[in-house]
Structure formats: C-alpha cells, structure tokens
C-alpha cells in the first residue's frame, strides 16, 4: 500500500530561505541546502522549493542551490517559481530536481504543460494551482476560481476544469493551494481538495492551512489528498516530521517509516 507523502515546502529568495528555520538546539538555518538535508534526515518524503526571486541573475543562484541539494539528499524534490519555458524546466531538471512546478505561466500558456511533459515525461511536471472560493456562476460552476499573483488577480477559470485540463495536457501531479486557507494554520480546504482529487487520475498534493497534525489527517482521508504540503508547523519547530507521522499513524494513515 502506498504511503501518504508529507512534503515540507521551503521558500527561497536569492539563494536564502525567506524565513529562517529553527531546528533542535534552536539553531536558525537560513541555508536552504542545510534545511533540506535536515528534513531529509528527519523523514520528509519529498521536498518542495519555491523560488520567489524576481531577478533573472538571481535565478542562477537557485540553480546552484538545486545542484547542491541534489548532491546531498536522495529523495525526490521539486522546484517551482519563475519557470516559464521548457528551457527553464531543463535547467532545473539537469541540476538535479526530480520535478518542476508551473503555476501562473501554465495558466497564461497551457502548452507549457504539454511541451514539458513531452520533453521530460509527465512525472516531472507538477501543476501548481492557486484557488479561491467564489460564488458559483456559469463561468465558475464549481465555485472555485483560479487566481494568480498571490490571489490578487482572478483569472475567470474554473479550478475543477483547469485541473482536468492540466491532466489532459500531461501534468503528472497537482499541487493544490487554497488561497483562503493559506497562512491560517487552521486546516486545509477539505471540500476543494476532495473535489479536485476525486475528479482527476493523477496525484494531488494538498497545500495551504496546515497547523496541526490532525489537519493533515483530515486532508489525507476526507480530503482524499495523496500528499500534504507543510511549512510553518515544521519550520517553527511546533512539530517535528516524526511527531506528525506518529500522529498520522495513530489515526490509521499509512506513512513511510524512516529507516
């Protein structure tokens, strides 16, 4: 039986973590490579890097981060943020990332998904979706709309339609982020997650809202998610990965044992 994946997400700007991550002994780590290595050793099943760098020259710094991470951690990791072309994908994959994640660039240019899948295989292409709850309309029948720019720009696209379209185009996985739940630490958007997960044949990673282990338990069962993205709850040492996995195991959810 497949284990549910627990995936820490690291935000990187110009080669540094945007928020320091505290580990045992209160060591503050600003180096994404060291942080990734710590999570790897603690039992992360995968790691997501999100590059929030704006300038082109700083992108080369991210490639260097990817290269150094790939030398030291031997689990899959993905890189998202600022990937707009197949060539951007190629650089990240050749540097050692298992997967690349595309979000707004795919909304604006859907063939980016199919071109990426053709070049590297579907298993490499993760579609990141930022979703906001809206009143259902003829255009947005599910009541969930695709937004970009951190939720500031509404795209007039139904999230359910986009998830299925992305699968048809060749996305291998969906990372589904609820803008409404993001940052609240009050739990994932369960209705949205189960709606999307039940409507596609590819794995769905739930994102946004994780604050306590029971939130993960809920999204991995009722939410039908295949994996759960976490950030603050581990970055600030509120929980360790082992504690989260123990609690999930106690609730009958299969997670990977660290050996």
């Amino acid at each position, binding site marked *: *039986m*497949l*284990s*549910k*994946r627990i995936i820490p997400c690291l935000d990187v700007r110009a080669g540094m973590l945007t928020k320091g991550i505290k580990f045992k002994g209160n060591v503050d780590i600003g180096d994404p490579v060291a942080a990734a290595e710590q999570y*790897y050793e603690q039992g992360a*099943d995968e790691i997501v890097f999100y590059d929030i760098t704006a300038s082109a020259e700083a992108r080369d710094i991210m490639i260097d981060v990817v290269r150094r991470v*790939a*030398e*030291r951690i*031997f*689990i*899959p990791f993905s890189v998202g943020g600022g990937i707009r072309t197949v060539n951007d994908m190629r650089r990240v*994959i*050749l540097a*050692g990332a*298992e997967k690349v994640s595309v979000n707004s660039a795919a909304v604006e240019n859907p063939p980016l998904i199919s071109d990426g899948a053709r070049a*590297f*295989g*579907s*298993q490499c292409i993760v579609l990141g979706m930022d979703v906001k709850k809206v009143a259902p309309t003829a255009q947005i029948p599910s009541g969930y709309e695709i937004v970009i720019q951190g939720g500031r720009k509404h795209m007039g696209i139904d999230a359910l339609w986009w998830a299925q379209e992305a699968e048809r185009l060749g996305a*291998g*996985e969906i990372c589904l982020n609820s803008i409404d739940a993001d940052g609240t630490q009050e739990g994932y958007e369960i209705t949205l997650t189960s709606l999307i997960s039940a409507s596609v*044949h*590819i*794995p769905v990673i739930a994102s946004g809202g994780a604050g306590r282990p029971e939130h993960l338990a809920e999204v991995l069962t009722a939410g*039908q998610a*295949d*994996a759960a993205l976490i950030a603050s709850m581990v970055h600030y040492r509120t929980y360790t990965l082992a504690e989260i996995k123990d609690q999930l195991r106690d609730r009958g959810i299969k997670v*990977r*044992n*660290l*050996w």
Partner: protein
Amino acid sequence: MIGIVDYRAGNLTSVARALHYLGEECRITDDPELLSRCSHIIFPGVGAAGEAMANLRLSKLDERIRQWIAEGKPTLGICLGTQVIFDYSEENDTACLGIVPGRVKRFPADLAEGGRRLKIPHMGWNRVALAREHAVFREIPEEAEFYFVHSYYPAPAEEKWIIGRTDYGQPFCSAVARENLVALQFHPEKSGRPGLKILANFCRWGGTDAE
C-alpha cells in the same frame, strides 16, 4: 568503475550523484568500449518504452547490453531500464530486449483499494516484500520503503525470477533477479537510506545469485 548506460532516456545524473555520495567511481556514457571495461553496469531510465528502444537500437547498445549480461557482468536495471529488459511492453506496443522472458503491463484503469479508485501512475513510497534473500537486498529491513513512479510493471514469465513484490491495488513484481542481473521497478537513487544501501550492495556484488 560503475558504468551508467546513457541511451537518452531521461536524466541519468541522479544515479551518478548517489554513487558519488557513496564514494563509488562511475561514468555516464554511451561508449560501448568504455562500458565494456566497467566492472558493473547500471541501466537506468525514465520515459517511454518506445523511444527508449528506438534509441538503444540506433546506438546499437541493445546488442552490447545483451552481450554484457550474457558475459556475467553484474547489471542493475532501474525503472524503464528494468522494463525494456523483458520481451515486450504494452507501452507504445514495444518489442523490447528480450533478455528476460516476460511482458510489461499497464496497471488496469479500474485499480482500486478499499473501495477507492487508485491513481495512476503509482507515485510515491511503498514496500517491497522479498520473495527470497538476495545479496543486493542485504541488510534491508522489511519495513523499508522505496520511491516509485510508473504506470507499467514487469510480469516475468517465471515466478522464480521475482524476488520482490509490491502492493498497489494488486500485488505486482517490483524486483527481479536472474543470475548476474537485478532489475528494480523503483528508484533506489531517490529512496533515501534503504535505496543508497541497495546501490552500495550492488557495487559490491560479484554477480552470482548464490552470494
């Protein structure tokens, strides 16, 4: 020296990085002469069977791989590298190398577990239940999990070549061994500590099944 066969099937550097981390010397190459001089061969791969076989035929590496395996060189197949070792793959209706009799099948679309439809590809961490002991799996605990990402799985013609099975809606063959060949459906290079242990075991393996 460990030779990693480069047949343009995805990014092969992750295997090389894992070997480097283990302190093993390796080369990623499509040069048959260089590969012939290697003590061990790793045959990895990510992508589709049809294109992989076309590349192997074009580069004539198909003949050489058959030869190295026949000569007794310890050889490790990974993922797509494992699948193309069989006679035939349902993926792109592809005739494969035919080194091990058997077929590669697609997971059925209605695969389910506990009343819930399962996603395809099978992507993530899962166990491998060993059917018997093998040097390449030495000191791997039963509860270890490995990283999989695939929609097709091998079905060897002979039960005795199956050394590991994994459960995903149905049991499927996830590890194959025959003489000097070991072939894995999962990615040891992306499977954390147990995966690295398998690679280390392989690099130290002399290539006889009884070891």
